């Protein structure tokens, strides 16, 4: 059993309206040194496998079939050392 961390973000050229709103919000808070906020999402899940190659295949397949829309998003993932939270 391994725990996966999958991070999904909008591709660089895709407008991130949430990020833009947050840019304005942090400026309101006086943090003019902060900019270019991009908002993504993170998925954690367990896979009942121990073979890394099999795990990577499952993660990639699910990431491209469902977890992300590869037209607008990109993803990266980590196989975490700990088995579960």
């Amino acid at each position, binding site marked *: 059993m391994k725990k996966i961390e999958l991070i999904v973000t909008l591709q660089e050229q895709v407008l991130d309206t949430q990020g833009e709103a947050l840019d304005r919000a942090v400026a309101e808070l006086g943090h003019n040194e902060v900019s270019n906020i991009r908002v993504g999402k993170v998925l954690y899940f367990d896979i009942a496998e121990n073979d890394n190659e099999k795990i990577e295949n499952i993660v990639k397949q699910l990431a491209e079939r469902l977890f992300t*829309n590869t037209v607008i998003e990109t993803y990266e993932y980590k196989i975490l050392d700990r088995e579960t939270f």
Partner: protein
Amino acid sequence: MKFAVIRFPGSNCDRDLYNAAIKSGAEADYVDYRETSLDNYDGVLIPGGFSFGDYLRSGAMASVAPVTAAIKKLADEGRPVLGICNGFQILTEIGLLPGALIHNDSHTFISRNESLKIVNNQTAFTDQYEHNENVIFPIAHGEGHYYCSDETYEILVKNNQIVLTYNNNPNGSRNDIAGIVNEAGNVCGMMPHPERALETLLGSEDGYRIFDSIAKWGDK
């Protein structure tokens, strides 16, 4: 013509679409998202709303619902598939239409009557309109910004797949795109709601001809 009006949990324009089909003289049934066959139907209407609560992304969960494989099969057979609003988002998520729908530039939900232009009347969905005819359909969406790559856009232009454009772009859509068809011309997706524009009394009847056209699909 007999249409399947697909109902996902969270669909909310299903009755409007059913009404539009009936009004245009076609038959229609509500079909549950757990159905696996659409063999008894001549076409599919995918309604607007918030299927599966827009969990993950608009249309993402619907893209793996049991009925989706049947929708793809029917589309591959050349029969008409029309997705409106969330239905358009679903059609891009399942790969029947190119591109994607992202948040409106303003990040606000916009609900209003919208002035649109029928830029392509050579499709079986829009053949009762004049070329560049202006129409009024309501829009009601938070994620209606049509996004596609430069490469996809060139293909859309080359194949004359752009059907409907905004006269006053409300959401940042690429080149004002409001609706497209697939290359074969039998799958159409649009963010505006022609099914809410069937009665002058309610503001506009400009949407009726789309449904009248597809009700006569079998005669084409």
